[in-house]
């Protein structure tokens, strides 16, 4: 039986290794400088890149972070300080609910709220949909990281005559900053690859656009379109795009681990 647990550990890590291996093998051959600097080519023409989709993804992540980070950190502060009020329990529960909602549901909600009334797709709608997905993630990690800060630190600041709000921001929040940054990076990594909420919001765009009021291209959307197409050249582009996307996500995820490590020596258990 003990052998079986070893076997399941091997089987569970196998898909990751296989996926990464295929990505590198199929993606690297299609990857070139042009991929980062050129626009997508029409069907039938070789070459081209995903410059607009890469920039689009960055714009979407930026918009999402502008919404998700402040609200998430603020809510986390609230939960850590009013730990056992009825409101805190409600918020915590609904934050889990929000986290568990299928991303496609968030997508149709954003469409209903931000696309339907305006009449056209926009990067803003996509970014805010992703931002809504970030909030529960950031809230949860912020609260957890703040709870790790020793009470004595807070008490020391208060005893020195710091007002409570200064104590929270300059002492407690600062102490937990590395942990919160980790949480923020994990949340960014998670939404960077989301596709479903963008289908009816950011929508994708064949052309160069960085305006939040216009539909915008995004790496995951582009990969999806190319992957289900019937053209070999587009398939190759999809693999290259996936390799870039996964590299982005993995670098952010690994950076997130190191942010915490450098501060505390080892991840807090």
């Amino acid at each position, binding site marked *: 039986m*003990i052998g079986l*647990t*070893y076997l*399941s*550990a091997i*089987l*569970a*890590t196998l898909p*990751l290794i296989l*996926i990464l291996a295929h*990505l590198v093998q199929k993606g690297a051959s299609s990857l070139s400088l042009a991929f980062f600097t050129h626009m997508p080519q029409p069907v039938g023409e070789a070459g081209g890149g995903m410059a607009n989709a890469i920039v689009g993804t960055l714009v979407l992540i930026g918009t999402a972070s502008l919404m998700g980070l402040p*609200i998430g950190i*603020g*809510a986390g*502060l609230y*939960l850590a*300080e009013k730990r056992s009020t009825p*409101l805190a329990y409600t*918020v915590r529960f*609904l*934050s*889990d*609910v*929000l986290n*568990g*909602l*299928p*991303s*496609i*549901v968030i997508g*149709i*909600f954003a*469409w*209903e*709220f931000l696309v339907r009334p305006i009449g056209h797709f926009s990067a803003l709608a996509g970014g805010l949909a992703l931002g809504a997905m970030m*909030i*529960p993630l950031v809230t949860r990690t912020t609260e957890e990281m703040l709870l790790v800060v020793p009470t004595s630190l807070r008490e020391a600041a208060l005893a020195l005559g710091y007002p*409570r*709000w*200064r104590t929270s921001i300059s002492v407690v929040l600062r102490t937990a900053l590395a942990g919160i940054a980790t949480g923020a990076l994990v949340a960014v990594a*998670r939404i*960077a*690859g*989301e*596709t479903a909420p963008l*289908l*009816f919001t950011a929508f994708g765009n064949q052309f160069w656009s960085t305006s939040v009021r216009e539909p915008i291209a995004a790496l*995951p959307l582009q*990969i*999806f379109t190319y*992957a289900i197409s019937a053209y070999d050249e587009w398939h190759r582009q*999809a*693999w290259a795009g*996936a390799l870039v*996307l*996964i590299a982005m*996500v*993995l670098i952010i*995820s690994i950076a997130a*681990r190191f942010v915490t490590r450098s501060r505390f020596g080892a991840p807090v258990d």
Partner: protein
Amino acid sequence: MTALPAQWLEKDRRKLRVEEAAIGDRVYEIITAVCALIIPALVVAIAVAIFAAAWPAFAKLGLSIVTSSNWDVAGGHFGAAPALFGTLVSSAVALIIATPLAIGVAIFLSEFSPSWLRQPVGFLVDLLAAIPSVVYGLWGIFVLIPLLREQVMPFLRDTLHLGATPLFSGPAYGPSMLAAGLILAIMALPYISAVAREVLLAVPRSQREAALALGATRWEMIRDAVIPYARSGIIGGIMLGLGRALGETMAVTMVIGNRPEISASLFAPGYTMASLIANEFSEATNDLHLSALMAVGASLFVITLLVNAVARWLVWSVSRGRAK
């Protein structure tokens, strides 16, 4: 004009500072409370918006949205039963595959792993959750599906003679319920194993020591003392994985074949609620069509909400004992 005594000024200044602090505290409290309140507001807004948009379809079609299997846009029939069926079956397949593996990994990591392996293996399994679903879909289309079509499906059907059962019969297309179930299994695995690992570590040491003291082997200790204690938490983890699988959109849409039919065979293509929305939403032809898709979204919302609520409650019931 006579100068005020110095100590008066000092007192005033101190009073001012206290008042300033009180205002600051008040502002700070309001800002954080507003941030916290945005979360319930968002959940309520999502529920209201989706149910309001789904209402015309529910009012006109009633429960036939989820019981009928006639999805005919031109004729105004919207029965998403095949999609509901596909969502449930693909998730069930995923759990059947992922659960034993995830629990195995969790036991390995919490009990048997040499300490130098624990971090890397845990990290690799966690990374599975970081891979974007569109990348899983891409891998599914170009690696998993050809493998299933050419090797696995013929092997299951002909070499193992499982073709006699309805589950593994019929032609091997490739895009299928089985492909969706396998992809979902890989995607649900890190969620289940993360929770299972956490609750296994929450089992008190005394529980283990008592079993060992009674002469149990390590495996008997895990089977008879550790797992029963962690059972409801592990079930919670499985439910969390289920919640993920039910709502997963892109990877499934890319590998399930998107055919709205109910078939007993796992080799046959199917459809899920999420992929139905993903495929038709931006091309919805009329208001009823759009509303019917919203109704599918609303049903998905309710199902995942229930599954997640039960999951959280189960996990919470185990981990609250951890601090002791």
